[in-house]
């Protein structure tokens, strides 16, 4: 019977084309709006490192005190003193620190123009902690950090640009007028949102192009290209050294803590560190420290743009209205065929058969709506790029799973909407219908 009902359903699509068109459009628009906004939301709210997100923590220390901190919260990164102290203490399995650098790159060949490349000055642990994949070579070693070595890891994209994609390990690059030896080339790596660098507002930024050792960058006095937040404590004195040892925060620090016991131990260590600073007279307040894991940090920093959440909710409301609309129209469509139902019932069809027939018919409407929805979703994806910044719009894309979801949601929702109209259809009294005709 399924095949027969399906055929009936398809045929009935053509019977009242106006009603059918209205329903198909309602479902199509509703499902498309929901799918487009959901795909953006899914992209911005995703977990960028699911396998480790509960083991990676950013460490924060209140170095400003209750009068200057942010409503009791420590600043969102560390100053040079605390960042280097934490990394030196080596109390976690892995620990990393980094800051943004923007360096000029001089490509080989006489007529190519220099360009800027953005990246991080960091340490060896960075790569293993954040699971950076390598195409060639590997990260530099901890001893390279200690030796302040002139080594660099470059991205797949920069490697394409500079070396035509060849294995460039051992070759030299000129970054900011200094030469570095390439030790590794990452595969394409662009976690979104870039959870580890929310401090610089880089969550949806362009992919990172290169990494150099933090110790080397400090020797070369490379300025931060990222955020430098001095709060209201600007008066640190003259020159770079005074700034370094002042209370400006500009270095995010992350630690890897695999077990709950590790987390507890590290929290105690942080508190003890702040306590020691208080006793030494640097902090005039009780220890105020935080350890936030990846999802906690993404939440705390409100990474999902309000726009994305609002549009998702508006679209879901929109879809709900489309479904209410569909219930009404299906009711009209089914009840118009009361005489036909009466005949079928009189000829012995049980209510179950009527249910089946009309739910399958609703399914065909849903399928048609889903196909329209798919088309509109594809068009909408192009539109998202026009409406929103490219960095976020780029994250939304139409893949197979989204296409399948669109169709399934459309069919499922329409069948759901058809329950009440189908029930009403099954309640039709055969005698009454036959009498009045």
């Amino acid at each position, binding site marked *: 019977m399924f095949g027969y009902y399906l055929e009936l359903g398809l045929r009935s699509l053509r019977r009242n084309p106006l009603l059918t068109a209205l329903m198909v459009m309602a479902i199509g628009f509703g499902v498309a*709006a929901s799918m487009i906004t959901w795909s953006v939301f899914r992209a911005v709210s995703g977990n960028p490192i699911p396998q480790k997100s509960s083991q990676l923590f950013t460490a924060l220390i209140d170095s400003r005190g209750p009068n200057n901190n942010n409503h009791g919260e420590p600043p969102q990164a560390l100053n040079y003193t605390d960042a280097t102290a934490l990394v030196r203490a080596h109390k976690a399995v892995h620990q990393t620190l980094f800051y943004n650098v923007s360096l000029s790159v*001089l490509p080989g060949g006489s007529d190519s123009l*220099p360009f800027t490349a953005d990246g991080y000055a960091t340490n060896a642990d960075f790569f293993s902690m954040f699971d950076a994949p390598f195409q060639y070579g590997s990260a530099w070693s901890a001893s390279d950090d200690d030796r302040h070595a002139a080594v660099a890891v470059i991205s797949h994209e920069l490697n394409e640009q500079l070396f035509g994609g060849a294995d460039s390990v051992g070759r030299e690059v000129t970054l900011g007028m200094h030469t570095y030896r390439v030790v590794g080339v990452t595969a394409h790596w662009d976690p979104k949102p870039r959870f580890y660098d929310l401090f610089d507002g880089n969550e949806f930024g362009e992919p990172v192009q290169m990494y150099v050792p933090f110790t080397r960058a400090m020797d070369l006095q490379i*300025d931060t290209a990222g955020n430098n937040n001095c709060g209201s404590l600007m008066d640190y004195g003259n020159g770079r050294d005074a700034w370094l040892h002042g209370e400006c925060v500009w270095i995010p620090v992350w630690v890897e803590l695999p077990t709950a016991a590790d987390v507890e131990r590290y929290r105690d260590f942080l508190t003890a560190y702040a306590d020691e600073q208080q006793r030494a007279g640097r902090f005039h307040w009780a220890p105020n420290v935080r350890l936030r894991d990846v999802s906690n940090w993404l939440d705390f920093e409100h990474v999902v743009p*309000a726009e994305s959440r609002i549009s998702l909710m508006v679209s879901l409301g*929109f879809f709900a209205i489309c479904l209410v609309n569909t219930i009404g129209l299906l009711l*009209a469509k089914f009840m118009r065929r009361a005489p036909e139902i009466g005949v079928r019932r009189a000829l012995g069809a049980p209510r179950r058969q009527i249910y089946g027939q009309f739910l399958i018919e609703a399914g065909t409407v849903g399928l048609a709506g889903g196909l329209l929805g798919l088309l509109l979703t594809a068009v909408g994806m192009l539109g998202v790029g026009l409406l929103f910044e490219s960095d976020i719009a780029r994250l939304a894309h139409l893949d197979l799973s989204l296409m399948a979801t669109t169709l399934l949601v459309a069919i499922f929702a329409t069948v759901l909407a058809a329950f009440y109209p189908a029930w009403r259809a099954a309640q039709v009294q055969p005698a009454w219908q036959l009498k009045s005709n």
Partner: protein
Amino acid sequence: MQIKPILAAMRHHRAGTVLIALQIALTLAIVCNALFIIQQRMARVSRPSGVDESNLFVIQNFWADQSSPQRIDAQMRADLLALRELGSVQDVAPANSFPMRGSGWDNFIKTTPDQIRSTLDSAIYFTDDHTLATLGVSLIEGRNFTSSEVGSQTPPDPMLASEVIISKALAQTMFPQGSALGKTIYVSGGNRPSTVIGVTDTLQAHTVANWMNEYAYNAVLVPARLLTDRTFYLVRSRPGQLAAAMRDAPKALFAQSRMRIINRKDGVMSFAQVRKAAYGRDVGMAILMGIVSLVLLAITAAGIVGLTSFWVGQRRKQIGIRRALGATRHDILSYFLTENLLIGITGVAIGAVLALGINLWMVTQFEMARLSLAYVAIGVIALLLLGQGAVLAPAVRASNVPPVEATRSV
């Protein structure tokens, strides 16, 4: 108009009635909030920057050779001179940031050196004596910097700001009682005093982000060139020569020295582009909400047309009987219009409550403003009119049912 028979008839198609009312309620709730969001976003977008945007563009210049601050300073002065000589250029100024750029330097500003809590934030613009003329911002009080007052500094050093010019909004916040001119303020975060020598007309801060909303028009102009790896040149073209100036300026800079990087993508940006980038999210949101509202209204109207047409079809015989018993066409027409109005009023009543509820929730979630009742009122009227408009065609068809229908197929 007799309402009783209409209510009695409604009982016979309760489901359809409830569905239409529900749809109107939900549509009102969403459209009200969507319109409100549009209004809020457009209000943001239409805020003035205070600068002469139509003739202004900005060059983002990286020094490719990591040179010393002294060499950067010398090159900057040479660049500024070279740019000012161009025929298409009216004036040029160096900058660390500018209105709507999105990032830059902001400091807490104090009126006494020993103030502990920071309460007032302001953009810090590093400028020279050409900045005001370049931006097209006028002074409402005091004087401009002289060229001898303009120094240069590297970022970690304390700010050179013994004289500053401040924006109108900052002046009014700090000195609500009188003129800010000649007053001492503390702009460097520490206890170095700065004297206010001028107050500008409206001048927007460097970011339009929400956290800056309270301080959106606070700016302090500091007379110094900031020597960093990246320098901005603000360039004001002669009227109508923006395109030419945008073409000439980078060439003139490269003729000066090739050891610089001006990115192809965003190295040279007109202020129209700067504005578009700054408010992209707001405009996108407003357009999206506009599209959603329009489609939603269309779908609701279509739903009403569909269900009412069905009812008219169902009741052809009854309509025929009424006509045969002496009801005029007008009676039939107004029957359907009234029926729709009754359903509509129920729907908008529920919808208005829902709209306010959704808004209250958004206020707590997204720091949105309270929905003004005017939007609800506009929404109510719009949806009632939409309902009446949608029902018109089926109602006219109903009124055209001939009395003879009463005698058919009985």
